[in-house]
C-alpha cells in the first residue's frame, strides 16, 4: 500500500508540475497536433494538384470526357482555362499539367475515329509525372464505359516540359540537404544565443561598450560554420551515396551556405526571444518540418490553393529547396529564378542580425 501511495503522490505531483511549467507542457501538447499538420501537408503536396483543362468545344461528349477526367484521378484539381493561359502557368510552375481536349472531339468520337487528347506534363520528378500520365488513359476507359462506346480510342499525346526524368528518391534527397541546412542552422543558432542568457553572460555583454550584437553575431557565425559542415555531410551522402552529382556545384554551395545562414540567424532571434535552450529543439523541429513539407520538398509548389503556396514563402526551406533542385537536377521548381531565391536567403540571413541587438536589450 505504501508503494501505491508513493506512486499516487508522484503522479499527482508530476501532473501539478506539468500544469505549472506551461511552456514545456504546451510544447508537448502542440507537437502531436504538429504531426497532424505534417501529415496533412504531406497529403496536400500530392493531392488536388492544379491541372489546366483546355476544352476546344462545348459538346455532350466533350463534357462527358471532362467528367470522366474528374472521376479518374482524385489527385487533380481541373481548372478550365484557355490554352495560352494554361501553358503560361505551366511554364511558371503553377500547374502540374495541361490537358487539351481538341475541337472536333465529339464528332471524332461519334465517327469512332481515334481522338487525340494532348497532355503536357511538368515532369519535374518521376513520381508526379507518372501520376499525371496515368490519369488520361484511366479517364478514357471511364468515358468509353459510360457512353457504351466499345473500342473508342483516345490517344494521349504526351509532351514533357523537361527533357530528362528525375527519380523521386533523387528529388527528395536533394531537398533533404536544404532540410539539414535549416534544422542544423536553427538549432545551433537558437542554442548559442539562448545560452548567453542561461549563463548570465548576456548581462555582461549588454553593459560592455561593444554591446551584445558583436558577440551574438560571432556566436552565430560559429554556429553557421558547424551548420554548413552538417549540411555538406548530408550533401556528400546525396552525391556519393545516392549518386546524384550537382549540375551546378557553385550554386549548390551558395544554396547550402545561405540556407544555413538564414536559418542560423532566425534561430538566433528565436533564442534571444526565448532566452532558454530547452524549448529551442522542439520549436525548431516543430516549425521546421511543416515548412519543409510545404517547401516543394516532396512536390514543387503546385498546391491546391494559394495560402499554402504563400505560407511556404515564409521559410528558408522554400528558397533552399528551390536552389538545390536547380543546382543538382537543373529543375526549376519555383516561379522565382535561382538568383532571386539566393538573394532572399541572404536577406533573411541579415534581417534577424539587425534585430538581434534590439531584441537582446529588450
Amino acid at each position, binding site marked *: 500500500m505504501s508503494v501505491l501511495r508513493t506512486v499516487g503522490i508522484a503522479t499527482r505531483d508530476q501532473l501539478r508540475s506539468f500544469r505549472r511549467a506551461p511552456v514545456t507542457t504546451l510544447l508537448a501538447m502542440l507537437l502531436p497536433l504538429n504531426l497532424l499538420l505534417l501529415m496533412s501537408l504531406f497529403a496536400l503536396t500530392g493531392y488536388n494538384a492544379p491541372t489546366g483543362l483546355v476544352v476546344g468545344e462545348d459538346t455532350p461528349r466533350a463534357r462527358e470526357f471532362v467528367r470522366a477526367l474528374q472521376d479518374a484521378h482524385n489527385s487533380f484539381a481541373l481548372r478550365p482555362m484557355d490554352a495560352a493561359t494554361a501553358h503560361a502557368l505551366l511554364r511558371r510552375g503553377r500547374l502540374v499539367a495541361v490537358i487539351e481536349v481538341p475541337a472536333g472531339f465529339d464528332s471524332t468520337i461519334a465517327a469512332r475515329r481515334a481522338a487525340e487528347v494532348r497532355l503536357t506534363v511538368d515532369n519535374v520528378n518521376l513520381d508526379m509525372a507518372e501520376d499525371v500520365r496515368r490519369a488520361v488513359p484511366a479517364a478514357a476507359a471511364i468515358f468509353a464505359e459510360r457512353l457504351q462506346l466499345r473500342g473508342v480510342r483516345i490517344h494521349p499525346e504526351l509532351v514533357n516540359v523537361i527533357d530528362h526524368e528525375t527519380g523521386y528518391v533523387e528529388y527528395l534527397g536533394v531537398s533533404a540537404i536544404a532540410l539539414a541546412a535549416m534544422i542544423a542552422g536553427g538549432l545551433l543558432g537558437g542554442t548559442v544565443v539562448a545560452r548567453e542568457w542561461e*549563463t*548570465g*553572460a548576456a548581462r*555582461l555583454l*549588454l*553593459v560592455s*561598450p561593444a554591446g551584445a550584437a558583436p*558577440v551574438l553575431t560571432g556566436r552565430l557565425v560559429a554556429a553557421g560554420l558547424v551548420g554548413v559542415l552538417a549540411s555538406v555531410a548530408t550533401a556528400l551522402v546525396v552525391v556519393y551515396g545516392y549518386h546524384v552529382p550537382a549540375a551546378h556545384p557553385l550554386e549548390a554551395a551558395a544554396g547550402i551556405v545561405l540556407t544555413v545562414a538564414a536559418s542560423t540567424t532566425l534561430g538566433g532571434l528565436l533564442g534571444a526571444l526565448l532566452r532558454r535552450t530547452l524549448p529551442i529543439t522542439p520549436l525548431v523541429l516543430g516549425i521546421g518540418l511543416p515548412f519543409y513539407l510545404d517547401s516543394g520538398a516532396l512536390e514543387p509548389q503546385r498546391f491546391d490553393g494559394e495560402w499554402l503556396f504563400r505560407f511556404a514563402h515564409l521559410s528558408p526551406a522554400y528558397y533552399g529547396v528551390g536552389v538545390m533542385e536547380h543546382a543538382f537536377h537543373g529543375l526549376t521548381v519555383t516561379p522565382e529564378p535561382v538568383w532571386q531565391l539566393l538573394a532572399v536567403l541572404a536577406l533573411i540571413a541579415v534581417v534577424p542580425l539587425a534585430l538581434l541587438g534590439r531584441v537582446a536589450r529588450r
Partner: protein
Amino acid sequence: MPDTIQLTDIRVAFGSRAALDGLTLAVAAGEIVGLLGPNGAGKTTTIDVCCGLRVPDAGTARVLGADAARSPREIRARIGVVPQDSGLFPELTALEHLELAAALYAMRRPRPRIEEMLRRYGLWDRRGQVVSTFSGGMRRRLALARALLHDPPVLFLDEPTLGVDVQGRRVLWDHVAALRADGRSVLLTTNYLDEATALCDRVAILDHGRLVACERPGELRRDGGVTLVLQCGAAAAAVAAALASRPDVAHAAADDGAAVVRLPDDAACAAVIAAAHAAAPIGSVRVIEPSLEDVFLGLTGRELRE
C-alpha cells in the same frame, strides 16, 4: 571624495509593484557600499539602473557624472560588473574568457593585463583549463578578474561570494577590500551580513524598494541600542523595577539573578549603570551590542519575503 555614483529619487515599478520607491544613495570614490535587503527588496534592480540596463520610471542615476539612462554608452567603458550568476561558460578556459572581455572593451595589446589579472587572482596556473573544472571560489575570482580587466573606476558586484566556501569567501573579501585601496568605488549586494560588516564602509538597507538605513556598520549597530546585563542576585527584580521607569531605558526585566536592561542609545549607559548601583550592589556589568543581523531584522522585520 567626490561621489562617483549618485542615485536621486529613483523609482522603478514592475506592474503595480514598486521595485524601487524613491531611492536616493551616493557612493564616493574609494568607497565600498553594501546593499542589503530581503529578497525582492530592489538590490539587483538598483545595479541594473546604475548600469543603464533599466531606465527608471522617475529619478536620475548618475555614474561618473553621466546619466545612466540617457548616456549608457558613456559609462559602460568605465564600469565593471560581476553578475550574480558569474556569466561564465563551463567549456571555455579562464584565458579565453578574459580574451573575449578584452575584445568587448576594445583593449589594445591586452596580453600583459590579462596575465596580471590572472596572476593577481590566483588563476595563472589554471589559465588554460576550462571553467567546469573550477571551484565556486575560482569562478568568482575569474568573474572579478574579468570585471576589472579594463581597469574601471566603478564596480558593481551582485552577490560576489554567493555559493563560495568560507576560505574562498575570505580570499574574495581580501580582493574586494583591495579595490578600496586602488581608489575604486564599489557597490555590492549581499545577503551575508558578516560580509557587509567586513567589507563595507557603509551599508544601505533596502526594504520594499525604500532605503531604510544607510550608515557605517558600527553606527548601524549603535543605532540599534545596547543591552546591559547587571548581575545583582536577589535584588535583580528591584533593580529592574527601579530602572524601568527611566526615560532612557526601553525595557528592563529580571532574569536569573540579573537585571537585563535595553537602552535605545548607548550614550545612556553610564547614567543607567550609576542608577543601578544606587538601587542595589551590582556584581558585574556586561554590555551587549546588537549584531548587524539584529539591526537588519529590526529594520526589515522577521516576515519571510520569498
